[in-house]
């Protein structure tokens, strides 16, 4: 570990904390339909969209209507992407003449991008045409993030409002999230990335002559494409689907340490800001800061563990100098880019899995067992440590409901959350939300392991490492993260369909109970705080919230983790690798 590494990590979180308030305040204005400086440009676009689509922007929805609109929108855009993938060979902007995408892979990809997962069971530069990347996939990067934003705002309205059944208008929230939040920041970020060397063009791939031909190979194909525009929203929308197969490790996606830093900042920018939005919309800014504090504690625990683990020398490389020096990064550099080194690779892995992004700048499969466990644990905690755009906040608020419920049980009072009594129905739905997640991950992983022809035939590694690869795949899919541990060829019928189901369930069947809680909370009266009310604005609340998240995650997944990365760690130090 080096001072340089610590400084980069410290500067990163400092900038996120500084950006949270302006970003959160701006989003509060956007979703409250108050004036912003972008109104003169975007206002006419918004009104035109409503006129063309026939949306009545002033008509609000109850939770069922809100959920219905979200499902219809998601179904329509999923089918659009599927159709584009299946017909790309006959459509324009395909200079490489790439074939139509196979049905199972096309469906898997359409679900993946609709659910903000961006799991990629394909090699983008040899599978997807420019049209598919731009119209089928990049659009979903905006839409799925805007859907997450809208849902989080609906949940916050449910907490903030009293004795109403209305949560807002899904179409308005979707439109404003896209136009006012995602598009402007993406445009600026894309230009910043271009300045660092990220490519943005529509021409065919280049062919370069190798200076030193290798085993009869004398040329190298260098893929091109409209990368910067997709890269910006890929990070900002916590999508993570790379334009290239190696994602943010590719020099055309992430060429410099500065572009790497900007990409990490973009991942946390909106999730951090949303905690401030929560505080402002509920009239309790300190509650927003308490939630942000719990997120920061969990983030710090993850990055410290990952950085420490990756900075350790490989115990199997006897007699090799693996210490930090002026000429080498030290520690475990396998699968990492030399331009990023150990510290920012560990930071990137932590940030991308805390936030349901799923982009990678190093290969998680090559991390040490404990270092690789951190990204998986981050997802297993429910993607609530900052979390995906919107999804992180509403996931965290489910844990908040559970925390005040447990605190209420401790003191023998009906639990209250910002003046709303938490009753049986709310807790039943919160439990439903929390149980669906492990059911999909552990259930589908178990089926894959028990059916070798389906689950093990495309696995590259045996033993605990192989189990980690399978477990990580279903964790990433159900958590809508999308990062791959690698080592597992997931482009098989079994994995395409089963991971598709995991992504669908992990998104939509968790959103429904969340919205039902929001609708139920909105209808309640507000009870004034009394001496017995458990405050949700204090460090004690943040500690309790952190404890509930860790305990739920540990109790649910610890047995599986002992059989995968923890066992692998012990065996590595006993001299055996997989």
């Amino acid at each position, binding site marked *: 570990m080096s001072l340089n590494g610590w400084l980069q990590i410290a500067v990163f979180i400092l900038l996120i904390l500084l950006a949270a308030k302006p970003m959160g305040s701006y989003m509060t204005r956007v979703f409250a339909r108050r004036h912003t400086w972008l109104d003169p440009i975007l206002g006419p676009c918004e009104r035109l969209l409503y006129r063309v689509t026939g949306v009545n922007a002033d008509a609000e929805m109850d939770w069922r209507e809100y959920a219905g609109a979200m499902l219809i929108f998601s*179904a329509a855009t999923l089918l659009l992407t599927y159709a584009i993938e299946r017909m790309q060979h006959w459509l324009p902007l395909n200079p490489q003449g790439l074939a139509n995408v196979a049905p199972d892979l096309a469906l898997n990809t359409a679900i993946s991008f609709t659910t903000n997962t961006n799991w990629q069971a394909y090699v983008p530069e040899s599978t997807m045409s420019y049209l598919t990347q731009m119209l089928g996939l990049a659009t979903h990067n905006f839409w799925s993030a805007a859907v997450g934003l809208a849902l989080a705002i609906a949940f916050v309205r449910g907490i903030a409002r009293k004795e109403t059944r209305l949560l807002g208008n899904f179409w308005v929230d979707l439109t404003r999230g896209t136009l006012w939040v995602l598009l402007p920041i993406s445009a600026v970020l894309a230009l910043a990335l271009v300045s660092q060397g990220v490519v943005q063009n529509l021409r065919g791939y280049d062919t370069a002559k190798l200076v030193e031909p290798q085993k009869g190979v004398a040329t190298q194909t260098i893929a091109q494409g409209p990368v910067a525009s997709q890269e910006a929203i890929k990070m900002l929308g916590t999508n993570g689907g790379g334009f290239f197969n190696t994602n943010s490790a590719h020099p055309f996606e992430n060429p410099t340490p500065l572009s790497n830093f900007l990409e990490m900042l973009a991942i946390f920018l909106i999730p951090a800001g949303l905690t401030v939005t929560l505080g402002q919309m509920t009239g309790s800014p300190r509650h927003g800061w308490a939630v942000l504090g719990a997120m920061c504690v969990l983030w710090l625990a993850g990055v410290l563990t990952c950085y420490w683990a990756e900075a350790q020398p490989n115990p199997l490389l006897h007699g090799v100098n693996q210490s930090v020096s002026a000429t080498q990064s030290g520690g475990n550099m396998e699968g990492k880019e030399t331009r990023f080194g150990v510290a920012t690779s560990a930071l990137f892995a932590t940030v991308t899995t805390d936030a349901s992004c799923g982009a990678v700048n190093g290969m998680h499969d090559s991390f040490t067992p404990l270092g690789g466990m951190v990204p998986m644990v981050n997802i297993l905690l429910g993607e609530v440590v900052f979390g995906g755009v919107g999804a992180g906040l509403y996931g965290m608020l489910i844990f908040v409901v559970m925390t005040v419920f447990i605190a209420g049980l401790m003191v023998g009072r009906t639990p209250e959350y910002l003046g709303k009594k938490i009753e049986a129905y709310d807790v039943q739905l919160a439990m439903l939300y929390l149980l669906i997640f492990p059911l999909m991950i552990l259930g589908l992983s178990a089926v894959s392991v028990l059916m070798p022809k389906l689950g093990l035939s495309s696995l590259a590694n045996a033993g605990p490492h192989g189990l980690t690869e399978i477990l990580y795949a279903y964790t990433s899919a159900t958590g809508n993260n999308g990062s791959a541990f690698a080592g597992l060829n997931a482009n098989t019928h079994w994995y395409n369909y089963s991971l598709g189901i995991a992504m669908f369930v992990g998104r*939509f069947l968790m959103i429904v*109970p969340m919205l039902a809680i929001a609708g139920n909370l909105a209808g309640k009266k507000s009870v004034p705080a009394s001496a017995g009310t458990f405050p949700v604005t204090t460090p004690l609340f943040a500690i309790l919230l952190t404890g509930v998240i860790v305990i739920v995650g540990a109790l649910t997944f610890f047995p599986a983790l002992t059989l995968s990365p923890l066992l692998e760690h012990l065996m590595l130090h006993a001299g055996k690798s997989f």
Partner: protein
Amino acid sequence: MLDLLLVIGALACFTVAQLYVEACDRLKAGGKRD
């Protein structure tokens, strides 16, 4: 043919999700009776 089946399957999943919305709503009525 497979395309048609997969599209129908995807729409069926969204239909299940919509039924799930109704089920969550009915759970509330059940909760109140208890």
